[in-house]
C-alpha cells in the first residue's frame, strides 16, 4: 500500500477547472518533489493531503484512509514559517505534543532533542521575531518532525530564505531525510533543489493542472551516494547536470504553452 494516493483527483472552482485527473502513488518513505509553473495547482494538491482543501472529483488517501480533516500524521511546513509569534522556540516546537497530550517529561526530552538536532541551542527561550529567517524555518521543521508524522508536506519551505541559508537548509534536509526517513511531498520553484532532494520529481502542467511527467532520481542518487556529498559537489556531477537540464526543459515547455 502506498503512503499517499491521488485517485483521478480534480478540483473545480465553479466552472474553472484548477486540477484535472491527477493520479499518483507515493511510496512509503519516498521523497517527492513537485515542480510546475505558477497556477498549476501544486499547492492545492499538497493542501488536499493536509486536509486543508478537498477534491471535487476523485479522492486522496493517506495510508489507505480518505483524507477528511487535518491531523498530526501529516505535518505541514509553510513557506512563511507560520510560527506562533507569542510563543518561544521551545513552546512552538512542543505545540503539537501538547495537542496530542504527550507527558511533560517525554515532551521535554523530545523538544530538547530537536532543538539540538536543528542547531537551535541557546535560542530555546527566544521568540520567533528574534530569530533569522533560516532559524525560524528550522523551528518550523523541528515542530513538524517532533510529532513524528507519517507524511511531511513542505510548500516551498526555503522560498523565503536567502541563497546561502537556502543551501545550508537543503543540506540539513538531506541529512534529516537520511537519519529520519519520512514520506515527503516537497513543492519548489527551484529545479536544482528538486533534483538534489527528491527520489522522484513530478513535473506539472497547467490549464488545467495535471501531471506531465515523473522523473526518477533515486537510482542515480543511491548509486552515486549523493547523500554523502555536499550540495556543491553533487551539482558538479554530470548525472546531476543531465537531470537538471531534463527537468528544466520539461518545465520550460510547460511555461511556453502559455
Amino acid at each position, binding site marked *: 500500500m502506498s503512503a499517499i494516493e491521488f485517485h483521478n483527483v480534480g478540483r473545480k472552482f465553479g466552472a474553472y477547472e484548477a486540477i484535472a485527473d491527477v493520479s499518483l502513488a507515493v511510496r512509503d518513505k519516498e521523497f517527492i518533489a513537485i515542480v510546475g509553473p505558477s497556477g498549476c495547482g501544486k499547492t492545492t494538491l499538497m493542501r488536499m493531503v493536509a486536509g*486543508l482543501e478537498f477534491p471535487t472529483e476523485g479522492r486522496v488517501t493517506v495510508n489507505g484512509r480518505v483524507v477528511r480533516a*487535518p*491531523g498530526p500524521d501529516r505535518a505541514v511546513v509553510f513557506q512563511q514559517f*507560520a510560527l506562533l509569534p507569542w510563543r518561544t522556540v521551545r513552546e512552538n516546537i512542543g*505545540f503539537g505534543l501538547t495537542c496530542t497530550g504527550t507527558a511533560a517529561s517525554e515532551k521535554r526530552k523530545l523538544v530538547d532533542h530537536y532543538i539540538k538536532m536543528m542547531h537551535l541551542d541557546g535560542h530555546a527561550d527566544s521568540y520567533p521575531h528574534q530569530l533569522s529567517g533560516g532559524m525560524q524555518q528550522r523551528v518550523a521543521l523541528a515542530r513538524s518532525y517532533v*510529532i513524528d508524522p507519517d507524511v511531511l508536506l513542505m510548500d516551498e519551505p526555503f522560498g523565503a530564505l536567502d541563497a546561502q541559508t537556502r543551501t545550508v537548509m537543503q543540506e540539513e534536509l538531506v541529512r534529516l531525510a537520511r537519519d529520519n526517513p519520512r514520506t515527503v511531498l516537497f513543492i519548489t520553484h527551484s529545479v536544482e533543489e528538486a533534483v538534489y532532494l527528491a527520489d522522484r520529481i513530478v513535473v506539472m502542467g497547467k490549464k488545467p493542472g495535471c501531471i506531465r511527467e515523473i522523473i526518477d532520481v533515486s537510482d542515480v542518487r543511491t548509486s552515486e551516494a549523493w547523500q554523502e556529498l555536499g550540495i556543491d559537489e553533487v551539482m558538479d556531477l554530470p548525472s546531476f547536470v543531465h537531470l537538471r537540464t531534463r527537468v528544466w526543459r520539461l518545465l520550460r515547455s510547460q511555461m511556453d504553452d502559455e
Partner: protein
Amino acid sequence: MSTLDEIMPISVRVWWTVAGFLALLGLWLGVSHSGLIEARMLPGPETVASTILRLMHESFAGSTLQEHLVSSLGRYLLGFGLAVLIGIPLGLMMGWFEWLDDLVTPFFEMLRFIAPISWVPFAVLWFGTGIGGPLLIIFSGAFPPCLINAYRGAKMVDKRLIEAVRTLGASNYRVIKDVLLPGSLPSIVTGVRLSAGIGWQSLIGAELIVVSSGIGYLMVQGQANFATDIVMAGMITIGCIGLLIDFSLRVIEQSISRKWSQGGGSQ
C-alpha cells in the same frame, strides 16, 4: 513663556489644556457671581466643591458620597465583568464556528440598536429595581463592544497560523485559546476599554431610574430637593471616575499593543 518653561519644563500642549480648564472655571465663576442666573440654578464652582466635601462626611439620600460611589462601582463591576466574561469567549467562538456566527449575528445586530436606556422598562419588569434590573442595563451597554471586537479580532488572525496548528493536531478549543485569543488581544483590549466606558454611562442611566443608592440615585434625590449643587457634584464625580477608568485601561491597552507589535504579531 520662556520663564515658565524654565521653572516648569512641561510641554506647551499641557499648558493649553490647563488654560482651557482655567478658562472654563473662570467663565463658570464669573457667570455664577454676575447675578444673571440665580445661584440656586447655577451654584459657583466653590459652592459645588464644598458640597462635594460636605457629601463626603454627611449622609444625603441615605449615604455619603463614597458609599454611593461604592454601591455604583459594585454594580458596575458586576455588569461589566459579566459582559467581558461572556462577550469575549462568545465573540472568539463566533469568529471560529461559522454556524455560531450565522446563528447569533442577525439576532445580535438587531439587539444592538436597542440603546441601554431603552432596556429600562423591560429590565424593571423582569428583574426589578434591585440588582437584576441595573445589571441588565449595564450589560446591554458593555456587552456589544466586547463581543464585536473579539469577533473581528479573531477574523483578522493570520489564517496560516490557524492552518499550521490544525495540522499539528490542535482541537477547536486549542485553536481558540492558543491562536485566536492571543492573536486578537489588541482588538479585545480596545473592546474592553470601549465597553468599560459605555458600561459606566449606562450604569448612571440605570441608576437615575431604578435603584435606591448610587451616584445616579444621589443626583435624582438632589434634583427632587432642587439642590443643583448636589446634581453637579454627582456629574463631576461621574466624569472623574469615568476618566480614571478610561485612563487606566488606555495605559494597559498601549502596553499590550506595544508588546504585541514587538512580538511580531504582524508576521
